[in-house]
């Protein structure tokens, strides 16, 4: 479903952020990408949602080389993907419901769809009682759940989570992980970038280790090793 073919990414005159990456992710996979800060995890994810283009090589998504997509088709590509970030990226002036609804508005969903789907997803992430609250009235874990709900609302086939537990306490982190696992069980591919050992080990799924822009380990043992 996602394939990296000899992908290299270089920013300016710096050493490569990614160096000759070959990688395949199958539908329904749960893949953890680990490695120290600056190893190239985020760059790898950005290549998937086409925020960045590779300097060399090709990234395929469902068989389509991403560099062939025009800027007009990029939005459509991104609708296949839900993204979750360490800093949540919630809009502070919108409440929980509106934050999630906004993602649907942006892709042109009807008001009826919004009224039907948003409460459902809020229920799934367990924030039913808090849908009228604003981000600053929520804990970090709750905010991350809102951002996950927003990532899921348009039913993407892949969820990309870039350090989703980076700002969270251990208990909230495990809650988020459980949610990701639940989503994965329902058939959505999950790509989780993290340097949180506990989270990755708890997941016990395929782990890809990146160091200095290279894949140093890709196995199914589910152990975080650096």
């Amino acid at each position, binding site marked *: 479903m996602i394939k990296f073919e000899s992908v290299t990414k270089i920013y300016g005159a710096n050493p490569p952020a990614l160096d000759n990456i070959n990688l395949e992710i199958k539908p329904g996979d749960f893949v953890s990408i680990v490695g120290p800060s600056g190893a190239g995890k985020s760059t790898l994810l950005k290549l998937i949602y086409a925020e960045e283009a590779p300097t060399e090589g090709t990234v395929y998504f469902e068989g389509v080389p991403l560099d062939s997509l025009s800027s007009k088709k990029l*939005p459509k590509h991104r609708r296949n993907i839900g993204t979750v970030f360490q800093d949540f990226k919630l809009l502070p002036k919108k409440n929980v419901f509106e934050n999630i609804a906004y993602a649907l508005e*942006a892709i*042109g969903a009807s008001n009826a769809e919004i009224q039907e789907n948003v409460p459902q997803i809020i229920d799934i992430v367990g924030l039913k009682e808090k849908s009228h609250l604003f981000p600053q009235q929520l804990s970090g874990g709750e905010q991350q759940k809102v951002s996950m709900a*927003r990532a899921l609302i348009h039913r993407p086939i892949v969820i990309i989570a870039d350090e989703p537990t980076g700002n969270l306490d251990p208990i909230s982190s495990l809650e988020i992980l459980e949610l990701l696992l639940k989503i994965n069980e329902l058939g959505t591919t999950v790509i989780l970038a993290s340097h949180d050992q506990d989270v990755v080990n708890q997941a016990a799924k395929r782990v890809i280790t990146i160091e200095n822009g290279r894949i140093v380990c890709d196995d199914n043992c589910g152990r975080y090793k650096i």
Partner: protein
Amino acid sequence: MILTIQRTIKEALSNFWRNSWLTVASVSILTLSLYVAGIIYVEIISANDEIRYIEKRVNISAYFAEDTPENEIISAKENLLQLTEIQKIDYISRDQALENFKRDFADVPAVMQSLEEIGNNPLQASLVIKANEPTQYQQIADYINNSAFKEIVSRINYNEKNKEVIENLNKNIANLRRAGASMGIIFALITILIVFNTIRITIYTHKQEIEVMRLVGASNGFIQLPFIFEGIMYGLAAAAISMLMLALTFKFGVNYITPIISSGAPSSSFFGVFISKFSQLFGIELLLGIALGVISSMIAIRKYLKI
């Protein structure tokens, strides 16, 4: 589609009010530009009206020797009418001329008295010729001077001065247009710069929203539209305000604007011109305002909205 437009308008309206100081700055400079454009427009229109009024009064008269039989004058008239340059010829007989003269000088006893002393009619018959274009009088005068009936024409009162006046007026209008255009371009550039900056800052303050929109796969149009709409709203607001300012200026501040030509023609009031051309001027202001707003937005979007 309707949904997108609805949401776009909602978004643009809230931007418009939330960044109130920036909005004030953008709308003011846009208003100022349109105001200047409006003044120049009305100046040019009324100057054109003046010229047309003056042109209407310009004509050329050919006077015939006192003993010329009427039929010869008529045949000269027929001959002249074949010229395409000529719009109209009025024949004024000697009796008619005398009547006109008496009417014009009825309250000047000295003139009337001397007329009586002369006894007979001292006036000549004439053809009053009106050309299509003021530039054609010289040609017509030349034609008469070389015509078969030049013997019976005693004089032509073609006045070089008329021509000069008209040429001067035309030159003035051309100058005004040129000055107006260069001023317009300078104002337009300043306007684009300031509105562009406002939209840039709006884009900056909406960085988060834009990022989220891109991540969830909002179409480029959906992301751009609110900013373009904002530009349109600046244009609408500026057009309305500048029209109001123009109305007030022409109504109450007329003493401070100098008309470039004034001949005392009935149409020479700026306010009159403003009212008679109101919808046309409003249309121009709207178009100009919206165009400037949208162009500035597009530049800002291209530069700062990486999509």
